[in-house]
């Protein structure tokens, strides 16, 4: 198996922990991994992305070539579009529906949704709303991860194991909250 994944968002939204969980699932299967991250200036509310590459075979480049990403997973709708040049023609675009507005000229939301739904394989998930429904706004990224999971190439149990590993130091409660959120995303049906 080989998956090239672009994780996108706004500095501070927590894309690194998403990458870490997928990375754990890959390592548990003995896969190779490269994950490039953004540190520095852009972390202050700018656009950020991470390239996550996992494969059964050794990986050379830390960066994904244009047109070869299997997935774009974005915690913010406009940010998901910024990386379209990287998506392969059969790739999935999974985006959180809730905008992060910290610029004065944020574009019209409906136009953004229109562009996203134009992508053949897309999931547009209202993760912020779903998180609010369970009263835990900290798990938005887990919901988006859940929605991405069917396209990541791992079994559901493998993903759950990785989540347990990731949060085990933070106690049972935190593990369960994150699993609950993951399930919500996993079971989300695009209408």
């Amino acid at each position, binding site marked *: 198996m080989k998956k090239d994944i672009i994780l996108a968002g706004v500095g501070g939204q927590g894309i690194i922990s998403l990458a870490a969980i997928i990375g754990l699932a890959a390592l548990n299967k003995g896969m190779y991994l490269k994950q490039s991250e953004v540190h520095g200036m852009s972390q202050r509310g700018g656009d950020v992305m991470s390239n996550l590459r996992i494969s059964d075979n050794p990986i050379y480049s830390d960066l994904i070539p244009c047109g070869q990403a299997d997935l774009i997973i974005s915690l913010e709708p406009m940010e998901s579009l910024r990386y*379209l040049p990287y998506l392969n023609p059969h790739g999935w675009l999974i985006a959180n529906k809730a905008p992060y507005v*910290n610029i004065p000229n944020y*574009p019209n939301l409906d136009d953004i949704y229109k562009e996203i739904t134009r992508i053949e394989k897309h999931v547009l998930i209202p993760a912020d709303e779903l998180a609010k429904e369970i009263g835990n706004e900290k798990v938005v990224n887990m919901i988006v991860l859940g929605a991405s999971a069917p396209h990541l190439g791992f079994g559901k149990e493998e993903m759950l194991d990785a989540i347990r590993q990731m949060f085990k130091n933070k106690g049972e409660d935190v593990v369960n909250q994150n699993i609950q959120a993951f399930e919500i995303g996993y079971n989300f049906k695009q209408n």
Partner: protein
Amino acid sequence: MNKLLLLGDEAIAQAAIDAGLSGIYAYPGTPSTEIPEYVHASKQAKELNIVASWCANEKTAMEAAIGMSYAGKRAMVTMKHVGLNVAADGFINASITGANGGLIVVAADDPSMHSSQNEQDSRFYGYFAMIPVFEPANQQEAYDMVHYAFDLSEKYGLPTLIRITTRLAHSRSGVIRKEQVRPQNSLKLPEDLRQFVLLPVIARRNYKKLLSLQDKLEFEAENSGYNQYIEGTNHSLGIITCGIAYNYLMENYPNGCPYPILKIGQHPIPKKMVKKLYDSCHEILVIEEGYPLIEDHLKGMLNLGKPVHGRLDGTLPRDGELNPTLVAKALGLPATMGLPIPNIVTPRPPVLCKGCPHNDTYLALNEALKNYSKGRVFSDIGCYTLGALPPLESINTCVDMGASITMAKGAADAGLTPAIAVIGDSTFTHSGITGLVDCVVHNSNVKIFILDNFTTAMTGGQPSSAYNRLVDICKGVGVPEEHIRVLKPLPKNHEENVKAIQEELAYNGVSVIIPQRECIVTLNKRMREKFKKQTV
């Protein structure tokens, strides 16, 4: 074998710990910061009593590392590329004194300027100093090279330079550690106690020694294994790659590259290997992350030999970071491409955090300067540089660390009075104090704002050497006490702060205004940790 998942930066740090490091010295700077941070956080390093110090600036860090090497122990000093400009005096002269204990300088370059003022290529500094330079291609090589660089440093009594770039620094991959942790050196001074005395008579002798070592360093580069000649079947082209450029090449040839490759990871340039490639191929392509250093050498001024392609003839872009797609184009391979970015996608530049103290300071400054002509605010490097962008648009310059105060002085001398300087607390102790001395000595009409948020925020909240010392430093330098004004930048204090600033603007002489309030990010982090402790 157990693999650790490490950033390139972390691989270097872990390697140094495993290779018998005794001390690491640094001033933070993207993308180098995670090297010292890793050592600071390492339990192993603590158990081994490894010294890990944040220094006032890169020069003090460099000199502390040279001092540790003088005492016979292994030292590492890390910085971002522009930090090497600050440390250059010590760095270049350390190649003349030579090293005693192993000495590694790590410079992290930032092509494409993700978080920097320029994209200078630190390899040139290595050549300037005439010392071995390493360019790891991946995290594992970064780990392995540290051991070897310490060995080479001790074998020839020279400092060595490891040069990495952003992508390697901030990318994670599996790294296999060496099984044995090497013990630290014991205290052992140089045999010749005048080796480090660079009086002309000694410096000349040392310099001749450095020159005489060059052939040996090249021999090492040919035989260490970090420069590899990889034979190919198609000799119409020969390819030279440096550092991570090799990965971008191989990404394009998953089943093997048809052309011969010279993969370079260690300098000085292994000339014999270059000649072998040059002689056996019709044309040469040089792929290097950074400036066209090897390409330029190979081409020569008149470009009379075989065609040499790379950044200089437009085969690759002259500036910016490389990637697999650019390399595919350079090789004439069909590059894959997704969909274009829709027009509605707007740039999202970084911004000051909500509730950032700098924001309140700038709002007060903007209002206080309302009746003055524009263009008189000289600033510096840190989170507060974001005040250049709308909506604040408060500052007019950002050149190099410390330049705010000294540029304001020069402009005031030219008649632009009052000139305003805006500098962060960490930048002030990095290289602002000497500028303040100049201002005081010449009684320049400058108003210096030291934005004290108790931390080095831009690079992730490292401690600030200025903490709790600012007022005393300014007094000590000779700023009149009544013109050192400490403010608390909060919306509710706005009127009061504007008034204080206006009073100082009316005074003809050096004023220091210190808006003091903790960075929101470090404050939140502190609160979370406190909360965690209480609940445990």
